[in-house]
């Protein structure tokens, strides 16, 4: 029976793992993810959920155990956030190279230093080139759905790669939203049991996995294989979305569209902050601005065709990055530019903004200003350099903090240190 409940993003992630029938859960705590593993632990303890949870001593070990478990043929779920994702980064690349399916939920949180608990996407984007698939959820509903879809794609014989489902700390992790929980009895229709024998360690079937290679030839071969599998995962993801819609009645696509049909100014954003853009689009529309939103649900593999389809022929495209590649700008803007470069019907202007770092809000006034700048840029045929969203008031507030710190002799000897 389908039921609608009020749960947090973390609760939704735990439900995703439970409904997927995750059998093995190597875990390690970190805010704002911890509630996921506590919830799973509680269910397992009470016998409401099967499976085995093991607390490792670090995320590096956690991802190693997760990959090794998957390589032995069980369905694996794990979760982390921020520093934890980076601590385990070596193994994220490694388990992708092992070509094992598992789902890792990352609850996005800004990276140290300075240390914060609040969200942005620099953690998850550090995993961009790892070989793991990457799905960015924007609502608690999407968290559950994306986890089930992620398992199906990851385990598909054409793909066989780990998948990361990202949700934003605080904005999703601790926010209660109404969620339709997929009917457990229907999950098997969508997500068949994992075939444990496809790639596994068994006494009667010895395998050597992840062995060394000598020379660039074999190395390139395996790296290319992984890349080609990831590229092919776009189609597998689309198939999974169609099937998900058929079984559960909710439809997804690699790039989610909001009021795109006749849009002239298109915002591009990922994750829960994209719901702010959605709201801004509606308000701009009410003011007569033909705005729209294209939201990549899938970041890896990069849905190039869908991005092109969504963005070509527009007056202007505005990418709002909730991340910052120091000395470059927003990562997503770079990705979008690469998809549009040389396209016959490329948009008149491509603008980049960076905002939402460490959970900083992005206001409607700012979206409206971005839309105005986009109009001007499209008219002039030239886009301004990437802008960092920050208000006079915010700067004043930081200056006040600094004055306070100086007055009390608290500065440790340099701005920016904390």
């Amino acid at each position, binding site marked *: 029976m389908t039921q609608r409940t009020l749960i947090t993003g973390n609760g939704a992630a735990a439900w995703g793992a439970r409904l997927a029938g995750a059998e093995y859960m190597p875990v390690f705590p970190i805010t704002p993810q911890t509630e996921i593993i506590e919830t799973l632990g509680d269910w397992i303890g009470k016998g409401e959920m099967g499976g085995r949870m093991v607390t490792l*001593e670090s995320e590096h070990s956690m991802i190693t155990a997760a990959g090794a478990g998957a390589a032995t043929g069980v369905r694996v779920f794990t979760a982390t956030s921020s520093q934890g994702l980076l601590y385990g980064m070596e193994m994220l690349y490694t388990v992708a190279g092992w070509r094992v399916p598992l789902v890792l939920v990352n609850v996005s949180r800004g990276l140290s230093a300075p240390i914060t608990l609040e969200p942005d996407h620099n953690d998850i984007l550090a995993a961009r080139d790892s070989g793991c698939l990457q799905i960015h959820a924007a609502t608690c509903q999407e968290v559950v759905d994306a986890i089930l879809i992620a398992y199906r794609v990851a385990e598909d014989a054409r793909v066989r790669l780990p998948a990361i489902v990202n949700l934003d700390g605080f904005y999703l992790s601790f926010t209660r939203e109404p969620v339709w929980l997929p009917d457990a009895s229907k999950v098997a229709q969508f997500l068949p049991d994992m075939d444990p024998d496809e790639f596994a360690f068994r*006494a009667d079937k010895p395998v*050597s*996995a992840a062995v*060394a290679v000598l020379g660039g030839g074999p190395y390139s071969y395996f790296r290319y294989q992984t890349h080609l599998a990831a590229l092919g995962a776009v189609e597998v993801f689309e198939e999974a979305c169609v099937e998900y819609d058929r079984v559960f009645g909710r439809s997804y696509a690699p790039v989610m569209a909001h009021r795109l049909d006749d849009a002239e100014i298109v915002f591009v954003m990922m994750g829960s902050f994209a719901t702010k853009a959605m709201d801004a689009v509606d308000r701009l529309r009410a003011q007569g601005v033909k705005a729209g939103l294209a939201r990549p649900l899938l970041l890896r593999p990069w849905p190039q065709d869908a991005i092109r389809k969504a963005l070509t022929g527009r007056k202007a495209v505005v990418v709002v990055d909730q991340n910052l590649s120091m000395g470059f700008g927003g990562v997503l803007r770079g990705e979008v530019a690469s998809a549009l470069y040389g396209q016959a019907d490329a948009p008149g202007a491509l603008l980049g903004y960076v905002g939402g770092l460490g959970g900083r809000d992005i206001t409607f006034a700012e979206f409206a200003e971005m839309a105005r700048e986009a109009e001007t840029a499209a008219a002039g045929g030239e886009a301004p350099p990437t802008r960092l969203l920050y208000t006079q008031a915010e700067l004043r507030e930081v200056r006040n903090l600094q004055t306070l710190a100086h007055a009390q002799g608290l500065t440790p000897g340099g701005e920016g240190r904390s």
Partner: protein
Amino acid sequence: MSPKSQFSGMKDLPKTHLLAPGSAMCAGCGGLEAVREIYDVLGGKTVFVNAAGCMTLMSVYPYTPFRGSWLYTAMASAPAGAQGIRDALDILKSHDRIGEDEDLDVVVLTGDGSAYGMGLSSTSGAIDRDLDFLYVIYDNEGYGNTGQQTSAATPHGARTATATSGIGVAGRKKDLFSILAAHEPAYVATVIGAEPLDLARKVERAKTMSGPRFLIALSPCPTGWGFDPQLSVEIGKLAVKSGAWPLKEYVDGRLVHNRVPKPLVPVEEYLKRQGRFRHLFEPRKDEFTLMDIQAQIDAYWAGVMDHDGA
């Protein structure tokens, strides 16, 4: 060595070897010798979980000398890889998705660099979780694969690629045996390939137990220690006879020395055959450092006499 062993003498040791020949290891590699002997007793129903080091080059695509399985992980987390495989096999068995005959012994294989340093936290964690696995540490007393730089296992007075002058390494070899034993695992033993009977009995014993089990194999390394490959066994035997490498076991919560060398061969005999200690003998003998090394060994064995009453 209390329980009955199938290895009562050298004649009982396996005559044919399970590990296929022709790996990329150096000639005279004491680590490979130990692994070969260990594998003969363990058998092919094993999965080796390896960390970065010399032994990583045992399996180079598309060849492997192992009859059983192999998974290369990374430098820090081989014990966590063993955790994942062990847990998954247990889950599959508990659901009757694999039979007992398809089960495997999970064996971690790493060097000292991993075991004494980068992987110590994942090793400690695996013991905390009472992981049922065997961990084989081949201790060549340095980061061998990268050219024998100083590791936490390098002994006092040895020169390495990162300690090329003066007395060499000023620090002392970390006592990993005691660190592991302090965790109260099922089993910890030191072994050396040059003493195959002692080694075989210990592997045999470890194989019958469950829980975390450790074999630390001192691994004379011609390349890193600077000696002729054909001296490998001789140097290994001298490590034991000089008391520099005590053969011991931690079992049932007790420490047992399997052999108390009496009298101790002067450690100089062990050291002078190795290039990494040559500076202690040439151009002038470094009496102070040599006495210091000898005194450490003497003090260790004096402590053993007190403790074991041997």
